[in-house]
């Protein structure tokens, strides 16, 4: 075995954080293909006109379809998604990135914006599940 600077499983030790890997990228391939399709104005219109019908063009899982319809970004990340793809969806909705990101925190968009104006979320207690620091 080659030695590593740290055990790779430690990447799962960070609270509230999902590391985007090659495996996740593949699981979300069709979801991400949908997201990137929204970089075209005509596709955005087609999606807005009938979200379900538009999603049927892609080979996404039903869980992924449902999470898109519900704009459940935490769930989409559970299902392999990465935020840089997912903001194509929130941009299509006219949401700011801040609003999309705030929706994953359990805070309202206003509460989250206020936290950011006050200096953001402290890393204290947020570094390691194991160490609790």
């Amino acid at each position, binding site marked *: 075995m080659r030695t590593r600077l740290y055990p790779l499983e430690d990447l799962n030790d960070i609270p509230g954080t999902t590391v985007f890997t090659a495996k996740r990228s593949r699981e979300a391939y069709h979801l991400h293909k949908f997201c990137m399709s929204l970089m075209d104005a005509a596709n955005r219109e087609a999606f807005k006109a009938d979200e379900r019908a538009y999603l049927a063009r892609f080979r996404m899982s039903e869980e992924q379809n449902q999470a898109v319809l519900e704009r459940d970004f935490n769930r989409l990340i559970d299902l392999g998604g990465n935020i840089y793809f997912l903001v194509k969806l929130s941009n299509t909705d006219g949401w700011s990135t801040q609003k999309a990101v705030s929706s994953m925190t359990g805070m309202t968009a206003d509460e989250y914006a206020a936290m950011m104006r006050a200096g953001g979320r402290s890393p204290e207690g947020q*570094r390691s599940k194991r160490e609790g620091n």
Partner: protein
Amino acid sequence: MARITAGVATSHVPAIGAAFDQGRAGDDYWKPVFDGYEWVKQWEKQEKPDVVILCYNDHASAMMLDVVPTFALGMAEEFIPADEGWGQRPVPVVQGHIELASHLAEQLVIDEFDLTLMNNMDVDHGCTVPLSLMFGQVDEWPCRVIPLAVNVTQFPTPSGNRCWMLGEAIAHAVESFPEDLNVQIWGTGGMSHQLQGPRAGLINPEFDNAFLDGLIDDTDRLRAITRLEYLRESGSEGIELIMWLIMRAALGKDVEQLHRFYHVPASNTAVGHIVLRPRELVTA
């Protein structure tokens, strides 16, 4: 002979681009951010770089779906601003520099950096927001740009140390280019931020400021920061800071800081900005 005369680093937050494009730069929220770039805008007018090698990451605009290159060098004559879901930014098309890009493509592969070469790609806010911050509102960008996209999203990303070594190789490659060119290298992205999950909104000013300090006189420490440490300390998107190490390494051993700025927040992100000159080029 081409020369790297300065290094510039900045965050590349998309909301900064939106505020800039929509004329909100003077708003109470945004004014402190844009004020932090007034110095560099005046400085760039005097520096007049011929070419900028612009290290940035693509945000699922031209890459990341079908191909996930670790280091991708922009070889095209021009790069169109991408439509990221709300139309293209109303900014000039980015003009490439084929001769220097081809030279880099050759020299860096010979130096064992197995680059991906991009003959056709759009560039997103990662590339165009730094250009807006340095050059302001212009009809055309005042210099050529060679985009160098780094995978900082899909794990494993390159290590910070690997980025450092790439920066050193870029410096050698530029030095061996025969044409007399004033070249700058920019590192973009960062500083601390996290855009996903319940930990979103993380900001770590202590880590960020220590990173800014380290660019001047503690680069060995920065080279040793692991991917895990970036994630823990600077958030899942804070690892973009490895791109600043490409810039820093290309400037050689000793640098002078010409300007530095730090501000929280811009949208979800801590904004950092630094301008560095290789010490051997600093005139008293």
